């Protein structure tokens, strides 16, 4: 049981560190690199650096709202029937 917890914790921290380093490199270091360097092939164009997080944030917010609405409607139905 502890091993599963440790594995999940390790996975979470690895994912967060990778996302942070990728995003830092993308936003802060890449503008200072010359246009012909090969590293530019591994990163999307800079506009996507804003679009993707905003899109993910909007999706998360809408999912939360839908979830809250669903739970509220369920509890109201229960109150009516009970």
């Amino acid at each position, binding site marked *: 049981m502890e091993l599963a917890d440790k594995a999940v914790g390790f996975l979470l*921290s690895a994912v967060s560190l990778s996302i942070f380093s990728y995003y830092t490199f993308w936003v802060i270091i890449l503008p200072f690199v010359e246009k012909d360097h090969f590293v530019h092939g591994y990163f999307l164009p800079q506009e996507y650096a804003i679009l993707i997080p905003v899109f993910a944030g909007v999706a998360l917010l809408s999912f939360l709202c839908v979830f809250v609405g669903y739970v509220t409607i369920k509890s109201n139905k229960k109150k009516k029937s009970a």
Partner: protein
Amino acid sequence: MVEKRTERRGEDRRKKVSVDVNRRCKKDRSNSLKVIVVPTMKHILKIMALVVVVAGLWISLLQTSVVPHSYTWLLPVYLIISLGCYGLLMVGIGLMLFPTCPQEAVLLQKDIVEAKEFLTSRGVDAGS
């Protein structure tokens, strides 16, 4: 005989407890709601005020050309994402370093078995 007496006492105690709970529920409902709602309203106002102040600071920095205009959206989004990453990292590290107490677990199991034996010997139905 002993069992009957304890059963009756248990019933009276249960009745008293339920009546008290009803009285408490009926009396304090409005007050408890007020106590719950008011702090959340003030808390949200605080958070919104903080967001407005930070946004104002950022816009003033942009207008006075201290920060180049290409960073208009990049830096706030970057800060938000780094904050989320930091939170996730703390959760992951906490999960990894969570202390389990194997000796306490064994002792607890022993206590459970002992209590079950005691109760079944006294005639109480201790579940699974």
